[in-house]
């Protein structure tokens, strides 16, 4: 425990040296990674999404043999989604090899450890769904061949706020594939000042990223996150919370069972990121918004802001009132 928490601490701290003023968001990203999930960042351009993804990839060394990165860390690919992008641009395509007189498969950018899918909602739905298959199944199908992806495959997708022009909003079923959806937002005045003075002074930040974890560390940490203990009362609380989203009059579509499963997975990873091997009620509170909010469809804007929060508050309060159960 102590070694893994120290490792996690060094990872988050390492990223924090590059991404200033966002410790919570960094933790979310790390937690999503440890839960073997993917994360969707919704933000305006220029908030540091790409830098975050890159830094994360560079902090981890010794990727699997298949995809070694050029600059030391695990393999990192970035795809800028545009309306004219095609699935094969992601997956790769069969190209006729003159030497072998045969079609060989030229792997696309999806074959990597850390993938940054930039502005995912600008691509057509066809492309989006191609990405989603590999996110869900960890595999890629092209023609009659199926390629397994590496166990460590982590997608950081970004999307512009829906209101902006030229976007294909992700349907609810596809949003469901993302374990978390968070929003970066702007940093505070002091942090911004700090960024302008220090970050610029350092110059090119990429070179300063240390490699603090190895690929096997990540696999190990993912394993460890699975073993985090979730108390039955916490599970009951989550069941109640998920059920209540379905019965809330201002929520048109409640959370699916998959949403609940994902929630528990994320809770475990989150507890680990917070150096605990058990889940507490604070975790529910911290994760409800990023994990559950994008899975629900609200009847109005007001409900979108308050309804989930109210349900979580009620549930957390119930857990807080509870005594120690079943221990004598």
């Amino acid at each position, binding site marked *: 425990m102590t070694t893994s928490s120290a490792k996690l601490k060094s990872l988050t701290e390492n990223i924090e040296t590059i991404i200033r003023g966002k410790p919570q968001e960094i933790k979310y990203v790390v937690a999503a990674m440890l839960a073997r999930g993917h994360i969707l960042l919704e933000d305006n351009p220029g908030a540091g999404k790409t830098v975050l993804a890159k830094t994360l990839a560079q902090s981890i060394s010794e990727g699997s043999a298949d995809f070694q990165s050029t600059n030391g860390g695990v393999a990192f690919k970035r795809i800028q989604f545009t309306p004219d992008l095609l699935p094969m641009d992601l997956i790769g395509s069969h190209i006729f090899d003159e030497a072998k007189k045969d079609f060989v498969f030229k792997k696309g950018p999806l074959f990597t450890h850390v993938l940054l899918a930039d502005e995912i909602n600008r691509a057509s739905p066809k492309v989006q769904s191609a990405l989603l298959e590999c996110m869900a199944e960890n595999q890629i199908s092209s023609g009659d061949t199926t390629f397994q992806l590496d166990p460590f495959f982590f997608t950081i997708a970004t999307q512009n706020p829906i209101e902006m022009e030229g976007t294909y909003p992700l349907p609810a079923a596809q949003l469901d594939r993302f374990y978390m959806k968070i929003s970066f937002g702007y940093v505070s005045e002091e942090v911004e000042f700090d960024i302008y003075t220090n970050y610029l002074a350092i110059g090119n930040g990429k070179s300063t990223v240390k490699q603090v974890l190895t690929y096997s560390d990540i696999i190990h940490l993912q394993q460890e996150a699975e073993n985090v*203990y979730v*108390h039955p*009362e*916490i599970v009951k609380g989550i069941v*109640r919370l998920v*059920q*209540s989203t379905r*019965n*809330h*009059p201002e929520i048109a579509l409640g959370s699916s069972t998959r949403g609940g499963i994902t929630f528990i997975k994320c809770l475990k990873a989150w507890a680990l990121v917070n150096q*605990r*091997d*058990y*889940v*507490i*009620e*604070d975790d529910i*509170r911290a994760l409800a918004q990023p994990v559950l909010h994008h899975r629900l469809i609200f009847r109005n804007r007001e409900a979108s802001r308050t309804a989930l*929060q*109210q*349900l979580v*508050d*009620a549930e*957390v*309060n*119930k857990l*807080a*009132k*509870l*005594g*120690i*159960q079943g*221990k*004598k």
Partner: protein
Amino acid sequence: MNFEINSERFKQLIIRWAVVLLPTIIIGYITLRFLNFSYTSLSTSIISQTFYFSLGLLAAYSLYYYGARWVVTFLLLWILYWLFEKIISRLPGEFDVFYTTARFQLYSTLFIFGWVFGFLLVRIKWAYIILFGILSIVTLVSISDTIDISLSYILLHIFPVVVYGLYMYFLSPILTERIDWDKKKSAKFLSRVVLFSLLVLLAFIVTESLLKGNVKAVEKELAARGAKGDKDGKNKNKDKDNYDDRDGLMDKTDDGYRLKDTMRVNSKMSQSDKLMFCGKLDNYFPDGSPAPLYFVYHYLTRYDPVKETFTRDVNVPSLDEISVDPTALPMYYSYTDTTMIRKSKGRKLRKIVEAQVYLSENTWKHSVLGPASVFSIQTIPVEKDFQKTFISGYKITSFTSELNNAYFVYNISASPKLEPLQEQRHNELRSVAGYNKIDKEFVDYYTKIPTGGIYDSISKLALSLTSKTAKPVDKVIAVRDFFLKRNENGKRIFRYTLKAGAVDDPNIPSSKMLYNFLFKTHAGYCTYYAGASLFMLRTLGVPTRFTTGFATINRSDKNKGWYWFYASQAHAWTQVYFPGYGWLDFDMTIGNEDQQGAPKPDGTPPLPPPEPWLVLNAKAESVDLITKSLITSFNQLIYFNNPAVLSRIFTRPIDATLCRVLYDKRDTTFAAIHPGDSLIIVSYKDEAKKIPQPRAGVPIEMQVEAFPSPIIADEIHIRVKEKEKKNEDAAKKASPLVEKKMTWQEIAWIVGKVIAGIILLLFLLPIFYLIYCLLRILLSRDVNAKADTIYHAALYRLHMAGLERETETPLEYAQHKVDPALSAGFEEFMRLYLRLKYSNGKLRDGDEAVINTFGKNIANAINKKYGFIKIAFNYFNLLKASHYFQSPQKSDYENQSL
């Protein structure tokens, strides 16, 4: 419709039978038991009633559980009805048909009730609230029908329903889910229910013991209310008619109006038109037309010259007033005054007259009202339909003279036809020459008047009227004629008025007013005429007495022999003694020519009570509420109107299935009978009963042996217990003011106290909770429990100190609110606590120390920071405390699935 027998679903149904239907059947049984005490139905078998109820309940519950709908309901009920019709058509006798139909009605009603309950329980989640409402209404109705109501009685009846309601309240949330028969869970659940019930019971007991005195007063008031009926309505009436007992003929008492024992003439008289009593007088002329008699109340034989009033006198020679309190007589028991029969004066033209009297509650009921010279009285019950009007009744037997009649005692006869009768009477009485032959002491007593002043001038007047005549009756006629004299214009000199005095001044001596009446104003009411003629006749040596009572007016021939008496008929007149004939009524009062009161209509006469063949004065040995029967022991009885005392005590069962039960002459329920009560048990003569006829010469004990067993009772009168009565009287004497003012102020005061007590208790609740928390800390043994209690106590105390936790989690609360303010190491404790609560790891060394230190630190820190006084005040802030227990925001969106 899904009729597949799914074994899992069936198992669930069986479990629901056990946890839902069984308690419902039990509560149904209890409620039916209570109902059967209060109401008489054709079948008293509660078991079969409950059986049909549960049948409906089970059938409906199971059917609707499997998703049956209206078609099934309709078909099933129709088949049941069709079967019943088949059975009916095959029955041989008419009685059987009637009996079966009546039973079918009862049982089908219960079945349908069960059906509806079952339906509600399956289909509606909150059905138990409806059931609870119905059951408590039914229970309350059955309670309200009882007269000897007490708090414990109410509790006993309400308690099962409350327990049922609570049980269903706890049960209802889990009914929508699949119930697993988990032993641990069910034990926990059961203990919760039991604990809560005990708490409710405790609360009841505490309330009762704390407010015992008040409750007793309320109970008394309740009982009084029950007994007096619509008292408020009557109070209003009292306000309306301005009867003033200072100058009326009657006194207002708690037991109704009574005629005054002493009378003086006043400047005016108040009257009211309340119904006082009604009576049936078996006195008729030979041609069959009713012959009314004045109803006498008291004789005022002595004149008190100091107070100038006429008063009753116990030391009167040959008292001929029956002295018995009718309320003290048990039902159907008679009292005969033998001295009255022995000492009765005047045997000429004497006859015996019987009368029935029914008193309304306006009338003083402790004295006998009846035609003159009552010598025997027997109490009789009032028919049920008339109980609102009349509260008690008795039969009386009295001596009366043929010469006595309301028609001819009256000053001027109502009809010319009666004048010859009046003349006849006078002629008959002319046979009396004087009073020389009779007891001198008697004559002296009844002719005694003061002398001097005004009295002398009255004497002079009297003597001037009758100087030439010698016979007593002529003297009486002369006095009468004096009042009837007309002036030269043919107008009456004397007239009748209620406002006799020129000046309304009570300080004017009444002799002075009498003088004014005779010599100046010539106007007055009955007391004036009676008083004046008494003085005049006594001066003339005629034994005379002042009589109070009621003038009898024959209103119609519709109800022959029945008379209605209103308060305005209260009257005073004179009785004159004629040797050989006894005391005869002579009413000198002049008719009111100015104002003839519109005759009041006849009421409906109460039906005469049926003749009992047996009246037992018995003691209840044991009471069986279910079969409505009791075992009694007795040694006194009235058998075909013959009272008898048995040589030994007999014990007999009594069947009271269709019996009327009365307490203090009011209807009550069978449940009011308790073992040890003394009862009057009445059985009517009835063709259907096997009544053993009395046999002459056979000892009464032998005849009692032949009585049927059980004896079928028609009426049971619970005798008012002597002890209770004494207590009541003592209470009345001790606090006459309270007794009078036990009105709205008193009740409001009591209710106020009760509410204040409850509010005080409410305001103390936050402190009680704190004490509970602290006690738990002291009592908790292992570390987990201790951490738990300290955690809760700390949260509560912080909340009450003003540092409320809002929507943040306890850890955030500790980090961001408590520690910055108090620095008591709350966060450290919280982390430890959360680990204990949610991890599956073991306790570590030092954990206990952290918990203990925190427990001490937080208490000190709170007191230090906020000050003891401020916190103490906060504990009375109920709103603040209630926020602690509230779950925030919209948690009610949960559990709406069904």
